[in-house]
């Protein structure tokens, strides 16, 4: 069977509307499933990396690093003949991100095939899926998909009866956002507390148990089967702007029809929020948005016509991150939302380095005071300073710099709201917004 090159939605093409189960292996194969892997097995591993690099596939976990380039740092077979590992990062826990869950629950074979292709490219014979503990349905469906694939010789020893073997193990985690940071994830897999490692050495050189390891996000890996089948040129043509491929974009918050859609990379924010999301609910105006999860900078209504791609959103001072947009409406307190985010980051800090461990609770403390009407003008300078001290380059990992992004951008975009809280001595949104959440 030939796969049609007019295909625009490779990530979701097997998932039928109105169903809720996982795509069964038979259907998956009837739709051309595991052909990408078959193709990959005919190619020298280096050519697979080259193809993926040329296609311009960038990491869908949020950082947007070129996937083929990431693989290329793994030592070659001539330089290193020992064990290598592939790890799928399925620890989706970014506030406002709900895309990997969909792929994991609905089309697990797409992920497994993607993993086999990536493993072939880097020479790994063992792979782990690092799945967050709060996704029990995904765990169940992945476990049965792995068993199905193994009994059909699509995974396990002798894939397609040939020399390539891949053992895929499902690792169920037990909470903690920091596990999604790739080096903390490696520590967690090794059975240690999930504390980030210093880089270098990078995981591609020294990762799991000191062996070369690649960590890729779920959605990233799900791009591989069709990319292998249909090629780099086709893949690049899926994007609307400079960035290649399609992408799962989502909207949550007070829009009419919140949801998740596969769209061309580079789709404008306005189209996602207004056409897919149906626009704001009656009685609500858009005040701002987080373009790609809780650790991205706020954008304002003036940014609605920007294309959702890594470069355009980056240039506007934010990050596309996970591509799942959270909309802030005009009846919700922006200071309250920033407080909610900072409480999350403070709680999820692993405590390893000072700016994060001490800075985040301090930020929470100040924001609580402001929200409750006890803030002072000087608090705003202090928040700026703390955001700066938690910024890039001052911490072991990206958790605190990620927390600083919505904080710092909110001080620019919503400064009048901060000032109103302080001058008025209370929250101007108090009648709309529910009371502060209780917390342990």
């Amino acid at each position, binding site marked *: 069977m030939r796969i049609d090159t007019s295909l625009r939605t490779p990530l979701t093409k097997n998932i039928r509307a109105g169903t809720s189960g996982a795509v069964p292996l038979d259907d998956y194969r009837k739709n051309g499933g595991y052909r990408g892997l078959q193709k990959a097995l005919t190619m020298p591993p280096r050519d697979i990396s080259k193809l993926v690099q040329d296609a311009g596939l960038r990491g869908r976990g949020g950082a947007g690093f070129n996937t083929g380039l990431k693989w290329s740092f793994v030592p070659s077979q001539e330089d290193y003949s020992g064990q290598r590992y592939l790890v799928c990062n399925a620890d989706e826990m970014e506030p406002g991100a709900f895309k990997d869950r969909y792929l994991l629950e609905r089309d697990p074979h797409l992920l497994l095939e993607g993993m086999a292709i990536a493993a072939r490219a880097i020479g790994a014979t063992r792979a782990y899926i690092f799945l967050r503990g*709060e996704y029990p349905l995904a765990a169940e469906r992945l476990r049965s998909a792995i068993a199905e694939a193994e009994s059909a010789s699509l995974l396990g020893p002798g894939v397609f009866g040939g020399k390539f073997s891949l053992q895929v*193990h499902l690792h169920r985690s*037990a*909470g903690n956002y920091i596990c999604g940071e790739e080096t903390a994830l490696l520590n967690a897999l*090794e059975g240690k507390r999930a504390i980030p490692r210093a880089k270098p050495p990078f995981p591609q050189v020294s990762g799991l148990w000191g062996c070369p390891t690649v960590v890729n996000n779920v959605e990233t890996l799900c791009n591989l089967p069709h990319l292998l089948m249909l090629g780099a040129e086709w893949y690049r043509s899926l994007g609307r702007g400079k960035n290649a491929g399609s992408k799962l974009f989502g909207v949550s*918050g007070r829009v009419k029809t919140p949801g998740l859609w596969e769209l061309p990379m580079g789709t404008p924010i306005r189209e996602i929020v207004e056409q897919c999301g149906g626009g704001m609910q009656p009685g609500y105006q858009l005040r701002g948005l987080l373009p790609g999860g809780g650790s991205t900078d706020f954008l304002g209504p003036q940014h609605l016509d920007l294309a959702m791609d890594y470069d355009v959103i980056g240039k506007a001072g934010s990050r596309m991150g996970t591509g799942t947009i959270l909309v802030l409406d005009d009846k919700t307190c922006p200071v309250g939302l920033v407080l909610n985010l900072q409480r999350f980051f403070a709680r999820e800090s692993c405590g390893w380095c000072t700016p994060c461990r001490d800075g985040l609770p301090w930020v929470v403390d100040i924001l609580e005071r402001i929200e409750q009407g006890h803030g002072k003008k000087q608090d705003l300078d202090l928040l700026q300073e703390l955001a700066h001290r938690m910024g890039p380059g001052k911490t072991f990992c990206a958790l605190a710099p990620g927390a600083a992004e919505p904080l710092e951008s909110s001080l620019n975009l919503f400064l009048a709201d901060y000032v109103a809280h302080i001058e008025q001595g209370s929250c101007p949104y108090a009648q709309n917004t529910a*009371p502060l*959440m209780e917390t*342990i």
Partner: protein
Amino acid sequence: MPEPPPIQQLSADEIAEIEHEAAAYPTRQPLGLEALRIVQQYRGWVSDGALQALAHYLKVPVAELDSLATYYQLIFRQPVGREVMLLCNSASCWVMGCSRVQKHIRQQLNIGPGETTADGIFTLLETPCLGDCDKAPVMMVGTEMHRQLDSEKIDALIRALRERHHSED
């Protein structure tokens, strides 16, 4: 000095499951979290006695294992109710009113986050983003997701769970 808690015994089933996981890893160190999860599945939580038994079985210091157990939010080192309600408190759910949901649970069950009802049925915990943001506010109870929560849905859920446990007793 308080008496140290008695060391408990691991069941054959627990040991078999732990050893089943061992095949997935080149060393035995990753078994720590797997073993904690397995024991919790059987016992509802990880008591001091169970922790000691596991440490003894895995041949690791108790403190080392406890440093893992207390690190992970979903490993319970205190008894929990038979139904653990994981109420998402992240950004999308907050915008869509999870604090009202929390307040309603407080009114109906008289528990806040980290607390268990006197009848031992419900424990309420706050949890980071459950990845269902387009259906906010959401909560997970056991392995079930409950979406687009409002007071009526919470009342119906509490009623159903209470009835199930009362009829089991």
